[in-house]
């Protein structure tokens, strides 16, 4: 790659950094209206919903990976396991699935 690559990296770094830094730095010490605070408190769970669905079903071309992986993750999580157990457990279930059934 030529010099343009490094200019591109700088550009990408700046446009990625700004949306991360501006709210954190500029909202510091500011009291937002209660309605906006409530919406912001809702964001984490809404984000998780949007990050999980529908992408979880399409982790592989074979849709069964997504379906079985999602079932495993929700099953293990609802059983009360911590996050790491959910992650490793889901990987293990899919590893077994792909070794034995494919």
């Amino acid at each position, binding site marked *: *790659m030529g010099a343009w*690559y*490094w200019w*591109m*990296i*700088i*550009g*990408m770094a700046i446009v*990625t*950094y700004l*949306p*991360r*830094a501006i*709210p*954190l*730095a500029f*909202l*510091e010490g500011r009291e937002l209206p209660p309605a906006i*605070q409530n*919406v*912001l408190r*809702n*964001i*984490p*769970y*809404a*984000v*998780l*919903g*949007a*990050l*999980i*669905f*529908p*992408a*979880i079903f399409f*982790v*592989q071309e074979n849709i069964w*990976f*997504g379906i079985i*992986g999602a079932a*495993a*993750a*929700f099953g293990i*999580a*609802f059983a009360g396991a*911590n*996050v*790491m*157990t*959910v*992650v490793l457990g*889901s*990987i*293990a279930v*899919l*590893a077994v*699935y*792909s070794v034995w059934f*494919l």
Partner: protein
Amino acid sequence: MDDRGFFSGIKAGTSIAVGYFPIALTFGLLAKTTGLSLIEATAMSIFVYAGAAQYISLSLIAAGVSPLLIVLNTFVVNIRHFLMTASLNEKMQPEKKWIKALYAFGVTDESFSVLATQKGGKLRTSFGIGVIVVAYGSWVVFTAVGHLIGANLPHFLQAAMSIALYAMFVGLLVPSMRENRKVVSLALIAGLINSFFYFTGWLSTGWAILVSTLASAILIEIISSKGRRV
């Protein structure tokens, strides 16, 4: 305020590190096949640190798209973080602006999710930095490793590990779902709206996540504030 510090943050961020491992490894490998040197590939992970945008940039580089357009696309893909860091600000302890501006660099979908869903009060800066450092470390190191070894994990493991980050999101969401029906509605509605955009193709992924998250958060707030008034 929550009293956990740096090392508890490392521990809480370890599931991100596991989830980043296969993705970063594959990124390093793909970067190599796209023609990037080890330094070039690793530099992107060091300075940009944004999974989806980095993957897209590789395919755009391979297609010969102009660098300016790649930068523009990166902005579009990552603008959703604006919403996340605004929300995260409510969860983090008050801190000097420059320190917040510094750790803001490490806010990704994943580190945001881990931090924002912690139980209890505001989080210490050191806890946040712990989560960020272990996640970032994994991303950078495994990008380089992927480029260096130039080979991927055995296929069954690669396929199985592709669930890791989604399983983490599920593991973060479910405990709150059990306690709070509002959480169920928030996640479900955002997931439905995002699925709608996915299947219709009306919005690209970055915008779809932004719009569906905001729509769900506002809608549920309107519904629940009406409930409070009655």
